[in-house]
């Protein structure tokens, strides 16, 4: 590789592999890499608002350690010294972890999440914590207590959500890669809207220990990267059974081997291409499917008959689990509280005839600490789990969940993976969907069924509509990340979308 070219290109624009090669060949140092990212953050983050917290000093200290290792002639791992950003709902010890909420505005994590521990061991340089919708609830990063992140491709538009900060940071080259979390599309949809790669693994592939829980049967942590091979590298570093998360599974690598592309059968679910969908998105995705066919894959139409119920299943199960998971925010042990503020609680008598008792500590701390979307979902969940409604809503949703999952399993008897659009639209304008919750929820219509079924999926750039990115979603069998990465890589190698950068 032309040495002059490497030094001229801004280091923050590199991929993980390119950065690793440069470090290995001593073309630049880990501190150089970190500085380049930090410079970019200083230059543009006031406009983009991808970061809630930048940990500059710690990042440079970590980078220096890696440089010392290189100086001593020691071999470095593929992720060592590579600057990364972590979504602010993933705990990082000693560093504020806010979930983009007033409730945790000043909360300092007392331990590292399992994925953070793994990446630290692998030598990650942590640049900072990225913005998200509050408690990972939303589809645009607009519910963040710290203001929305703007899409680097058009600062008047949303980056998608809830990992909008992570997606924006990767798209704007403020970091080399980032971590996000995905419960109903929160890695894939922002990846699609920001023109980057986003991978949600099979449920149970990556530990949720240290992820601020939203919906425990749906949440997964995953990477947002500039290309597919980077996503694969991060996946390998963070996946694995964890004692601290009983829902993780040990998988032997030999289970799935890569196949000859000419033998791959790709299914296109007919329910995902409905009349009235955005024409530009439809065109890009159909062209991408044609490209896959040109590359040798066999394309087949399939049906996921319960596709139309996926969103309803999600909006019953997820809020129910949210209501249970957010019950821990009680103003007693951590987080925002009306206690300790020196003001005696002034309030009328509550239903128990008490004035300013324990009950009020809960109700007032939570009311003031949480934003509207969080309250909506907690209440939805409380209702659907309550006596008299549990069977009609939650239990029913669990059963339809089985049917949604079976749809995928049946389809995978005929094909190896599925392709669909990731998002029904390109990035919409800030404020456009904010006032109607249901309109916002429909942004996730193509992504939620994947979490409901627990299968893996990746979103990769496949085109543009009026200079706004479009994402292609590739969905795989349970634990078959290998096939979807392979298909994604083949498409990426035959196209140039992933090389395009926004002008900020």
């Amino acid at each position, binding site marked *: 590789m032309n040495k002059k070219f490497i030094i001229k290109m801004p280091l923050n624009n590199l991929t993980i592999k390119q950065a690793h090669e440069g470090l290995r060949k001593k073309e630049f140092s880990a501190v150089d890499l970190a500085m380049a990212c930090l410079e970019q953050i200083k230059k543009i983050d006031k406009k983009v608002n991808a970061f809630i917290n930048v940990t500059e000093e710690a990042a440079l200290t970590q980078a220096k350690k890696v440089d010392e290792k290189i100086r001593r002639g020691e071999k470095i791992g593929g992720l060592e010294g590579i600057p990364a950003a972590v979504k602010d709902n993933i705990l990082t010890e000693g560093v504020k972890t806010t979930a983009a909420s007033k409730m945790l505005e000043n909360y300092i994590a007392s331990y590292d999440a399992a994925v953070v521990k793994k990446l630290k061991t692998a030598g990650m340089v942590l640049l900072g914590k990225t913005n998200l919708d509050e408690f990972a609830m939303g589809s645009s990063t607009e519910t963040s207590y710290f203001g929305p992140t703007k899409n680097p491709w058009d600062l008047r538009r949303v980056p998608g959500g809830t990992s909008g900060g992570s997606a924006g940071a990767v798209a704007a080259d403020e970091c080399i890669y980032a971590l996000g979390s995905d419960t109903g599309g929160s890695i894939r949809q922002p990846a699609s809207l920001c023109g980057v790669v986003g991978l949600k693994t099979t449920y149970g592939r990556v530990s949720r220990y240290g992820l601020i829980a939203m919906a425990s049967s749906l949440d997964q942590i995953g990477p947002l990267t500039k290309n597919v091979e980077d996503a694969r590298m991060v996946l390998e570093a963070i996946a694995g059974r964890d004692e601290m998360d009983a829902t993780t599974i040990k998988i032997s690598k030999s289970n799935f081997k890569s196949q000859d592309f000419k033998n791959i059968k790709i299914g296109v679910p007919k329910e995902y291409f409905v009349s009235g969908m955005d024409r530009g998105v439809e065109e890009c995705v159909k062209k991408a499917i044609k490209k896959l066919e040109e590359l040798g894959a066999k394309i087949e139409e399939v049906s996921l008959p319960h596709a139309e119920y996926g969103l309803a299943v999600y909006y019953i199960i997820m809020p129910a689990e949210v209501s249970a998971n957010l019950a821990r925010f009680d103003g007693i042990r951590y987080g925002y509280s009306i206690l300790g503020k020196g003001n005696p609680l002034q309030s009328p008598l509550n239903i128990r005839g008490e004035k300013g008792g324990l009950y*009020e500590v809960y109700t007032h701390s939570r009311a003031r600490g949480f934003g509207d979307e969080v309250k909506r979902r907690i*209440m939805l969940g*409380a209702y659907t789990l309550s006596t008299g409604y549990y069977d009609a809503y939650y239990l029913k949703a669990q059963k339809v969940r089985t049917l949604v999952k079976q749809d995928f399993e049946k389809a995978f008897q005929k094909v190896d993976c599925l392709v669909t659009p990731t998002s029904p639209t390109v990035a919409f304008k800030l404020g456009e969907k904010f006032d109607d919750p249901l309109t916002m929820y429909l942004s996730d219509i193509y992504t939620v069924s994947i979490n409901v079924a627990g299968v893996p999926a990746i979103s990769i750039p496949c085109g543009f509509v009026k200079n706004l990115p479009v994402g292609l979603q590739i969905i795989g069998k349970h634990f078959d990340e290998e096939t979807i990465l392979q298909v994604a890589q083949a498409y990426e190698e035959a196209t140039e979308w992933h090389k395009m950068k926004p002008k900020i």
Partner: protein
Amino acid sequence: MKLTKEQVQHIANLARLELTAKEKEKFRDQLSSILDYVEKLKQVDTKEVAGTAHATGLENVMREDKITSASKEAKDKLLEAAPISEKGLVKTRGVFE
């Protein structure tokens, strides 16, 4: 279907959220329209179907029933996060007051 004011108050109690009258009206409308949307699951026949709790079918993952104590350092970090603490304990309002 439209939730009644009483139902919204009941839900707010269950959720331990203090809401203003204006908020109750707003959430009443929004929750009702979301519930309308999810009603469509009634159309699905689930007579012979068992529910899915864990997407990849794990059951009963156990560990040894061993108690390990946290270090003083860890305990201190946890106490630091509490709004009021006293003598190494988190302080709360009376439960039975």
